């Protein structure tokens, strides 16, 4: 599992003033005329935990293979409004897996699907992996401080033409963003 506090990918904020203004003035003591405004510029953010690895134990290439249930959790969700929602999506980094031997037949990214898992404080969405677009895994309930699942199951499609044993690997990237207004 990887745990990180991440700024959301889809939102850009100006976080800091690069130059600080100063006021110089002569005062008679005792003086309380000078003020400073403290500003906490809070970016949209959340703490996320995703699996660092998902393993398909393929005993029969002619049949689909389900991975063990994976957990995904999101906490400390900070968004701009109470109506915005936190969305979790997934995209493959390549069009296909990397085969254990160069040139060997392997699975394409689209051979990976996932279920509409039961989530706490979120709605899960079934999807198919793509390397061209992020596809939705879940959308958290508006104004939820956290959402999670322990029942996200990825399935690798049947591929009867695969002839090489060993590790076929594919890296996928999670996207966390706010949607709505």
């Amino acid at each position, binding site marked *: 599992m990887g745990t990180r*506090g991440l*700024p959301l990918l889809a939102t850009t*904020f100006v*976080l*800091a*003033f690069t130059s*600080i*203004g*100063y*006021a*110089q*003035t*002569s*005062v*008679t*003591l*005792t*003086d*309380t005329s*000078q*003020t*400073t*405004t*403290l*500003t*906490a*510029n*809070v*970016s*949209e*953010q959340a*703490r996320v935990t995703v699996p660092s690895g998902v393993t398909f134990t393929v005993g029969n290439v002619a049949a689909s293979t389900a991975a063990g249930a994976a957990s995904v959790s999101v906490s*400390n*969700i*900070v*968004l*701009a*409004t*109470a109506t915005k929602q936190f969305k979790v999506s997934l995209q493959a980094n390549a069009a296909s897996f990397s085969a254990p031997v160069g040139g060997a037949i392997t699975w394409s990214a689209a051979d990976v699907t996932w279920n509409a898992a039961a989530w706490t404080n979120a709605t899960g969405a079934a999807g198919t992996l793509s390397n061209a677009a992020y596809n939705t895994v879940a959308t958290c309930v508006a*104004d939820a*401080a956290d959402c999670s699942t322990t029942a996200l199951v990825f399935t690798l499609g049947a591929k009867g033409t695969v002839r090489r044993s060993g590790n076929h690997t594919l890296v996928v990237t999670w996207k966390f963003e706010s949607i709505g207004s």
Partner: protein
Amino acid sequence: MAVVIGGTAEASAQTFVVLPDTSLVTAAAAKVTESARVTVPAAVSFPVSNVRTATQSAAVTVSIDQIVLGSATEQLRISLRAGGASFSPPKTGATTWSAGDVTWDAAIWTAATGSAGTLASGPYTPVATCDAGTSTCSTNALRFTLAPKPTVKRSGAHTLVVTWKLESIGS
């Protein structure tokens, strides 16, 4: 004859003199108040990218010069107080930081002793005390820290105005 003129209500005397005459004098009094010239930041920013951890501001400069006090043993003290018990969140009613979540370090000052402190909306809390007899004191290393607040749920600008107090202490 001597005529003394002073204060806000001027007294005057009329008399005949034989010329040339240098018998009339006027006392001029410069009433000097305790004073100083001060430079403080107009704004301090906390770029909060993780509400679960503390966020430190950039170092800010505070300088005081032209210090005029009643004696060589008096000292100029600079203090800070919050204008409210908590920040103003970007959305009404949203959870935000309290004034007490802001602290500062005992920065290194020139001709002054810095004091670490915690912001309060009640009393002024010392930030530094200038050395006795000095005409200037300053720091460019004052950093404020905003405490973690995992319950914050709203992004945007959370703001709080603080007031600086400059006073003489001692005698």
